[in-house]
């Protein structure tokens, strides 16, 4: 039989591996995507090769920041002192690793889209290189929001003490808190990247309307992030609600499935909202005088596509508070 300290130590090593292992997938995909498009852009306009390569590297660095967050969490986990830890810490650390590991995926893939489109845009319209890089930086910085949320949940799970809480239902709540934010960040990260990419393409096509295109991109990205904000809310409730001690397995499974429900339920709406925002940004770049109407239709469409995330949130709250 393992003693508690060995168990917590094992869980921290497992969690560090999961965190950076899962977290590395997305960044590599996003960066490769960017490099592919940079090659295309250079072949179209070889004399601008230097500018394009520079913007590719800047964009890749932004896309990689989600993986760097995962690396920071993994290193913190590896060197954590668990010599006098409570048994609940074992579950909290697994939750922290899962949250950051899954949470880094979407933002890193999403960050690749604006970087790729900015490279293509420079080859298409070299005179607006500065505007394109600025827009790409704003877009990919906003893309990192889901990864930042996942990192916050990881750090809270790692550094808050759970000594006064009952072991039985709380262990499930801590893992569920990680899954809720981590999984729901996948959709929101990818969905946030789509309008950012399209806005870089739009600015290259229609540089005079850069202001309106960036505004529409920001609104679209913000709404695409709503599912992962619901995931964050469910995680906060799971962490800070103090459940009553019980011997039954039912409340624990209810809490665990609340996290899985919100996490999985947030993936689809995040990507769906990204499609809506991408379309709106694309057509605002082509017909800027209709930007008011297009933005409104985008929001209405996103609200409908988001209703499934709201169903998932309602079911999670019922699982947490009623069962």
């Amino acid at each position, binding site marked *: 039989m393992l003693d508690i300290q060995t168990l917590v130590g094992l869980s921290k090593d497992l969690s560090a591996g999961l965190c950076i292992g899962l977290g590395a997938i997305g960044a590599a995909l996003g960066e490769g995507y960017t490099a592919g498009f940079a090659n295309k852009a250079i072949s179209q306009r070889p004399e601008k090769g230097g500018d394009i390569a520079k913007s590719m590297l800047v964009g890749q660095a932004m896309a990689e920041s989600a993986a760097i967050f995962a690396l920071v969490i993994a290193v913190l986990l590896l060197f954590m002192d668990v010599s006098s830890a409570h048994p609940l810490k074992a579950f909290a650390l697994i939750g922290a690793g899962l949250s950051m590991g899954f949470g880094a995926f979407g933002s890193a893939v999403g960050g690749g889209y604006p970087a790729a489109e900015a490279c293509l845009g420079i080859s298409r319209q070299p005179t607006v290189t500065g505007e394109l890089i600025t827009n790409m930086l704003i877009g990919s*910085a906003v893309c990192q929001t889901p990864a*930042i949320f996942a990192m916050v949940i990881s750090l809270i799970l790692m550094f808050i003490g759970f000594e006064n809480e009952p072991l039985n239902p709380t262990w499930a709540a801590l893992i569920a808190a990680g899954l809720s934010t981590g999984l729901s960040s996948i959709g929101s990260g990818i969905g946030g990247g789509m309008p950012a990419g399209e806005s870089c393409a739009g600015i290259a096509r229609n540089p005079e309307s850069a202001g309106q295109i960036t505004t529409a991109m920001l*609104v679209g990205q*913000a709404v695409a992030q709503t599912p992962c*904000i619901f995931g*964050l*809310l469910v995680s906060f409730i799971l962490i800070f609600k103090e459940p009553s001690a019980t011997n039954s397995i039912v409340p624990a499974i209810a809490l665990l499935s609340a996290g899985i429900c919100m996490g999985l339920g947030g993936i689809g709406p995040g990507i769906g909202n990204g499609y809506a925002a991408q379309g709106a940004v694309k057509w605002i770049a082509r017909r800027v005088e209709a930007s008011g109407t297009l933005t*409104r239709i985008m929001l209405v469409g996103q609200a409908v596509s988001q209703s499934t995330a709201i169903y998932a949130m*309602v079911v999670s709250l019922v699982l947490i508070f009623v069962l």
Partner: protein
Amino acid sequence: MENFTEILQLKINLAGIILSFNVKTIIMTWIVMVALILFALLARKKMGLVPNPFQIVAELLITAIYNLCIDTLEDERLGKKYFPLICALFMFLLLSNWLGVIPKLCEPTRDLNTPLGMGILGFVIAQYAGIKEKGLKQYIKDYLDPIFFMAPLNIIGEIAKVVSISFRLFGNIMGGAIIIIVVSYLVYGILLPPLLNLFFGLFVGTVQAFVFTMLTLVYIAVQVK
């Protein structure tokens, strides 16, 4: 590092009802308000055709937000009506998010109560604008769209907007603050923290203040149409 979720609270017992005040948030909010009033006074001082530096900044800001209001609401009268609110909201949030860059001060928006209050304010104003512009009958009818039994979902969707708008701002500012604290602890405060403050405090703070303001404006625009 373990106590970054701790909040300084003042609890007052008023005939059995316990009122709690987050002292630090209130002080920081007052600092922001005083700074905004000072800015307004400086911009108004000796107003003229040859403007002073504060007047230039104020004029640029006001023109940009005024055009944004009219473009988004697609109506000159409505744009004029809601412009003071939108402009004040943006300036307050912008300065609030920037405040954390100064040592010993912290952003009022790091406390969930501030963004939540602003979110509820925007929600109530959007509903008021909807009733005022469309009439009560059309306003209620829009909630029964497309069929009457969709009404509960429409109402939940509307309330979810308040949750998402306020948690987006709170999560970004709080997340940035936590990341700055953790990284400063790891590198003993060398080299990285100023860059992180620049990114999370100034850059993300500006973007999120703009997103919050823009979403409030767009929610009003969706209600009045």
